[in-house]
């Protein structure tokens, strides 16, 4: 199912995640701002067949921990501990990679095919990822609360 970028709104993202996790998800739009601080983020990079960056999903740690947990029923308390410790690891991290893989749909828009190529963690984007992320005007952001887990945030930045 191809998605049009214009249809990527809070309702679409909410339905998508509700279907993925089988739990109610509250989603609302926010403002996309390139991370510049002390907080850790996950940077999921999506590329086309030729290896060019199509987009970057920037997820805060609460989102990575919550989605990495809910996928295999890791308790919310464990997700909360991961956020406190400043890192998602083990099966929580492995699960988040799968969530990021499925979120390729947010970048396979308007007939393009985007595939998750790497996920890195840090406080800010670097190199070619920064080139996309720092162009904040092309981004969109969503605050997401999955039933039973803490609220997190994702930002979607498109290369064009």
């Amino acid at each position, binding site marked *: *199912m*191809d998605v049009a970028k214009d249809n990527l709104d809070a309702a679409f993202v909410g339905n*998508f*995640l509700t*279907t*993925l*996790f*089988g739990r109610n998800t509250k989603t609302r739009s926010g403002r996309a701002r390139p991370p510049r601080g002390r907080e850790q983020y996950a940077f999921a990079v999506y590329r086309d067949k030729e290896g060019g960056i199509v987009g970057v999903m920037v997820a805060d740690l609460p989102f990575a921990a919550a989605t990495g947990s809910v*996928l*295999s029923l890791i308790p919310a308390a464990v997700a909360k501990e991961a956020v406190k410790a400043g890192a998602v690891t083990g*099966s929580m991290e*492995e*699960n988040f*990679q*799968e969530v990021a*893989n*499925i979120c*390729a*749909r947010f970048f*396979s828009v308007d*007939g393009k*095919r985007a*595939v*998750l190529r790497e996920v890195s963690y840090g406080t800010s984007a670097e190199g070619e990822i920064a080139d996309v992320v720092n162009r904040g005007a092309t981004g969109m952001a969503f605050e997401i609360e999955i039933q039973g887990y803490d609220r997190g945030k994702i930002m979607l930045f498109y290369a064009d």
Partner: protein
Amino acid sequence: MKILIVDDSRAMRMIVRRTLRQTGYGKAEMTEASNGLEAMASIRGAMPDLVLCDWNMPEMNGMQLLRTLREEGLNVPFGFVTAEGTAEMRTAAKQAGALFLLSKPFRSKDLEFVLDQVMV
């Protein structure tokens, strides 16, 4: 009925299992493989009634698995369950002999619908 679930993500295999249990196919015997090579070995050992397979996997991806199966004359019913689902991929899947391509995420009723179409 035996269903082989092939996905490199353990969590995704668990989700497919859980979703299958919510359908009319919940009583099927489910086995798992984490890539095409493992799946190939499993199928050679005991032919399942259906393979539900991811597309992108290490070692041997879903399309390579499907082509190898067909080259060996193993016509086990095969469907893709994958994060992607472009028109181009659907066409390629169909041409290679897949019965369907279901994009993740999916609801139990979506899975049941496609299975009802092919498991007759």
